[in-house]
């Protein structure tokens, strides 16, 4: 079998693109200045229009263009919309009314199971917006028009919220924006330990820093380039000590021989370093993949073991571990989390109502109700 492509990525804090692409007109933005200062030895290319660049393939199809795209950082001015409804809001699944703010598209990490491999398959670059002010103006217009609603907004849907912070410095503006509004909760979701920029700011109740966690056995093997389980936990502890609310997502939940012990140990490790009575929320979400993504995982990560569980097609077309097994795993993990964090908000991601009901009892909440619980 060929060797897996995704190995040996540098630690997150030292991630460097091979080239920095700057769209003309963005050279003097704060984001571009910061990135150039942080990457003095990385070649810079000026391009006229990011939209044109984005249509240009960087590698032949058989040479992992997705992986190649991750090594080219493009700073550009986004002309379209920034805010979107979370993709987890699929008909037939319980939704939590989450909004995603897309300031970065793609990720320096290369998790074997990542849906971006399909969603951004032909993207030739890792894109980050330089016009954060435009993005925040759009969000402000939405939030200020509905002061009676609280908006949970996250930047970690098609990117890692913090992995590029040493280069971009987006969080300063984001955190200031959320802090200034009573009806916004900003979630920064990450697999990194890049929290120094955040820790340099005044912490706010309106900013939740959350970590996607898998047991070390999965993190070490399947999440190339990310911070280790221990490093993520240490970063979370630092954030909590500084005054931030933190959250944890066991997503994807991966089924393998011995996984229950590993997840139980992971919960114990969290409980030993985090004050779980102050956690913002916890979520569980089984590994899910379209048939196309499964094919990509097999092709790009031939050593991966994430597809070796008993996954079958679900009603939404995605493959998940068959439902009675998922329910069993959710119940175990939810039980350990409930024991460790009795009062914490705990929810499932991308699951149908009957799974909610079987895991938690009662009737699955409506999106608005769930959104309120998680505020």
């Amino acid at each position: 079998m060929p060797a897996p492509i995704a190995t040996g990525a540098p630690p997150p804090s030292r991630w460097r693109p091979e080239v920095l692409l700057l769209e003309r007109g963005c050279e003097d933005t704060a984001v571009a200045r910061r990135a150039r200062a942080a990457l003095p030895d990385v070649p810079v290319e000026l391009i006229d229009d990011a939209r044109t660049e984005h249509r240009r393939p960087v590698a032949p199809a058989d040479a992992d263009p997705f992986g190649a795209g991750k090594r080219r950082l493009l700073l550009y001015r986004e002309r379209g919309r920034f805010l979107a409804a979370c993709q987890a809001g699929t008909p037939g699944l319980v939704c939590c009314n989450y909004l995603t703010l897309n300031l970065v598209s793609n990720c320096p990490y290369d998790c074997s199971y990542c849906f971006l491999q399909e969603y951004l398959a032909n993207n030739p670059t890792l894109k980050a917006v330089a016009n954060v002010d435009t993005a925040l103006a759009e969000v402000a217009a939405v939030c200020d028009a509905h002061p009676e609603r609280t908006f949970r907004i996250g930047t970690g849907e098609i990117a890692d919220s913090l992995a590029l912070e040493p280069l971009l410095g987006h969080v300063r503006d984001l955190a200031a924006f959320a802090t200034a509004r009573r009806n916004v909760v900003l979630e920064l979701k990450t697999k990194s330990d890049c929290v120094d920029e955040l820790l340099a700011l005044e912490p706010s109740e309106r900013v939740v820093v959350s970590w996607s966690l898998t047991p070390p056995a999965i993190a070490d093997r399947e999440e190339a380039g990310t911070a280790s389980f221990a490093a993520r936990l240490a970063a979370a502890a630092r954030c909590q000590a500084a005054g931030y609310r933190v959250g944890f997502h066991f997503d994807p939940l991966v089924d393998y021989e011995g996984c229950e012990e590993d997840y139980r140990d992971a919960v114990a490790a969290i409980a030993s370093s985090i004050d779980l009575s102050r956690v913002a929320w916890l979520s569980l979400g089984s590994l899910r993949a379209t048939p196309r993504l499964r094919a990509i995982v097999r092709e790009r990560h031939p050593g991966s073991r994430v597809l070796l569980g008993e996954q079958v097609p679900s009603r939404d077309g995605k493959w998940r571990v068959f439902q009675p097994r998922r329910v069993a795993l959710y119940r175990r993990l939810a039980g350990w989390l409930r024991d460790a964090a009795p009062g914490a908000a705990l929810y499932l991601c991308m699951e149908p109502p009957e799974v909610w009901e079987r895991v938690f009892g009662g009737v699955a909440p409506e999106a608005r109700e769930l959104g309120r619980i998680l505020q």
Partner: protein
Amino acid sequence: MSRDRALDTAVRAYIADRHIGAVVAARWLRWSPADAAALLDIAEALALGSNQLGELTEWLEDIAARDALGPAAVLGAAEIRGILAAPLGRSDKLKRVKARVRAVRYPRLAALERNLDADVRALDLGPGVTVRFPPGLDGDEVTVEVRVRRAAQLRDAVERLARALDAGGFDRVFSRLDEAT
């Protein structure tokens, strides 16, 4: 011609003759001679096409990676050899071979399905009542279908269903469907 070379030629000939897709072909061609030969035996015996081979080879590779049980060991099991030797038509053999390999690939799911089938048989609902589960057990909804041609048959089916309910037989079914440890 060496044995391995003869095998390689035979596999390539099968791939060409049956228009096997590139991904499946590449997978098959990188297998060890023993594994490739075991698959060729089955493929020739059951005249497997590209889709059938695709599913089978994927399951076999997953089993090998997870359980350290190679394709030759899985396909050479007595149960599969027995199916191939049985006086059955090609499609029946294919169905049984696939079910057997699937049971190795999905041990918990297959065991649960077997136990649910046994639970349903134990309900003794008669020939007019069918109990069906969602495909892949993706859901908690069970379909109970009653097909009758006369009132007496309906009365019999309803009585059997009532007896099964009273005896807790359906509770056992739903309980088993609830979770798989």
